[in-house]
């Protein structure tokens, strides 16, 4: 369980991004947070990862507050995959993935033998073909899979992914979403930041919408409420389409052109 208790946060010199935010992302579920650019999705994830500390309130994983934990203790509980990562170009993929074992190596015990975790991560993210290759030769999507594998090796109760599918091709996206569902099934808490308001619901994940005011709302069930919330948050006309019995929302190309003009004028 990833919990935010009365979390207030502002970057130095900036306005408060979150004001007394309360939220719970339960164990055994994949939770996705969507919202417009600049609403603070990445900041929310960094707070949940303990990389940023709230000015008031606290973030915790399985009821253990991250603020007081040492970096190693924190890394044994939460794994974090950033939007962009920096991979040392001359390192082979297998050694980068193995870095996920760092917190367990520095502070035993390890959850399971490292060989087992490495093999599973390699299979799960389809890295067999690039396992020995240096990072400098990887494509964006391959690099993203390597960083995901590293987070799997970390084998933490909580997993945070910041737009983890942004560079992935369609097949890899499907692979990743299956994997996330399976990991949540094992009893982990998973939190994603995403731009897509449709795929989380198609995959049976929980969706939350983060508005510009730092307000986090669960995605409503009724179609009218969904449309109203999305248009209010994104300032863009959307049209609903039924897919598998789930209402998906897409930007309306006809009206969008007109509205985009208005947005530029703002």
């Amino acid at each position, binding site marked *: 369980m990833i919990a935010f208790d009365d979390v207030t946060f502002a970057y130095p010199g900036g306005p408060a991004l979150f004001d007394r935010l309360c939220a719970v992302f339960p164990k055994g579920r994949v939770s996705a947070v969507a919202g417009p650019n600049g609403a603070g999705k990445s900041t929310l994830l960094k707070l949940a990862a303990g990389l940023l500390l709230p000015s008031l309130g606290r973030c915790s994983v399985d009821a253990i507050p991250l603020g007081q934990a040492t970096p190693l203790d924190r890394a044994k509980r939460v794994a974090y995959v950033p939007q962009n990562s920096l991979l040392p170009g*001359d390192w082979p993929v297998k*050694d980068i993935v193995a870095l996920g074992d760092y917190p367990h190596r520095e502070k035993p015990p390890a959850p399971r033998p490292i060989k087992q975790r490495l093999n599973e991560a390699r299979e799960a993210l389809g890295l067999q073909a690039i396992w020995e290759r240096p990072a400098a030769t990887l494509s964006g999507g391959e690099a993203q899979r390597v960083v995901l594998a590293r987070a799997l090796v970390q084998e933490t109760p909580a997993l945070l992914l910041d737009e983890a599918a942004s560079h992935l091709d369609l097949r890899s996206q499907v692979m990743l979403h299956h994997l996330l569902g399976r990991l949540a099934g094992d009893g982990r808490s998973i939190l994603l930041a995403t731009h897509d308001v449709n795929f989380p619901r198609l995959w049976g994940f929980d969706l939350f919408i983060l508005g510009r005011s730092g307000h986090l709302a669960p995605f409503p069930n009724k179609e009218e409420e969904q449309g109203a919330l999305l248009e209010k948050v994104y300032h863009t006309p959307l049209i609903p389409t039924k897919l598998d019995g789930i209402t998906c929302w897409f930007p309306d190309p006809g009206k969008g052109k007109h509205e985009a003009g208005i947005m530029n004028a703002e």
Partner: protein
Amino acid sequence: MTRREAVALSIGLLALIAGIACALLLGADLGGLSEASRARIIFGLRVPEALAAAGAGAALGLSGLLFQLSLRNNLADPYVMGVAGGSAFGSVSALLILGDGAAAVILPARALCAFVSGMATLSILRRAARGRVVALLLGGVIANTAFAAAARVLAALLSPGQIAQVTVFLLGYVPTPPVWEPSLLLACVAILGAWAVYKSRTLDLLLLADDEALALGADVDRVRSRAMAAGTLLAAAAVTLCGMIGFIGLLIPHAARALSGHRHRTLVPLSCLLGAALLLFAHSGAKALAPWVLLPVGAYTSLLGAPAFLWLMVRANKASMTVE
């Protein structure tokens, strides 16, 4: 340890042994001398020189590795970044102000001044550059020039007789000190090298983005500042004994990475071994090449290092080190 790492360390060790052999055997022909004077030349001159060259080379190699890692930039080293210049100025001013006292007091005092001055230079430059590596390196080069000029001015004001000595110091040379002086430097290398090997897994993580390393459990800020302080201390110690020997700190980590790969558990000892070997070879080469003038060895390392620096710069632009 992988096979490649073992081979690399063996090469480093062999290079060091060869370097020591060169330093002890090369030089004026000792054939016609008596047993006693031969021993005096070998143990009184060549051994201390070899120890000084090995100590300074190892210190500079390790210092360069720690700076390249801390800044995630392969063009960094204590010389380029102005740390060596700062240290040299601190060391020379301590020497000029304290004068000819007991070496046991003067040398540690100079090393301390060198360290403080090097750290000050580093923190001012880092603050001014605000994360722009080009600005940092450019600032470092300018700082070196300014410090060299300041050291000469100070020498001219305080003791004009020492200007020649200061010039040699600024070029970098291998002295003939009492054995305890280079031993102190070697002890310094051993202690900081042991620390770096002990922390090598954490040092590996410094190559990642800060957020990623932090998320994996590394105390990034603390380890980075310690690595930089260690790098500065090593540079200050080397500079105090041997002056401003350029480019060893820049080149050695590249050679070490090419040989052993990327793990700091191997890169740390290998940089020490190769650095020591390189300066021993350069010192022996300088003696063999122009025995009649004994040009300071720093002149040779800079002649060799400057084109190598340019080559690395061109290559760094071609193949970016990181993937985003």
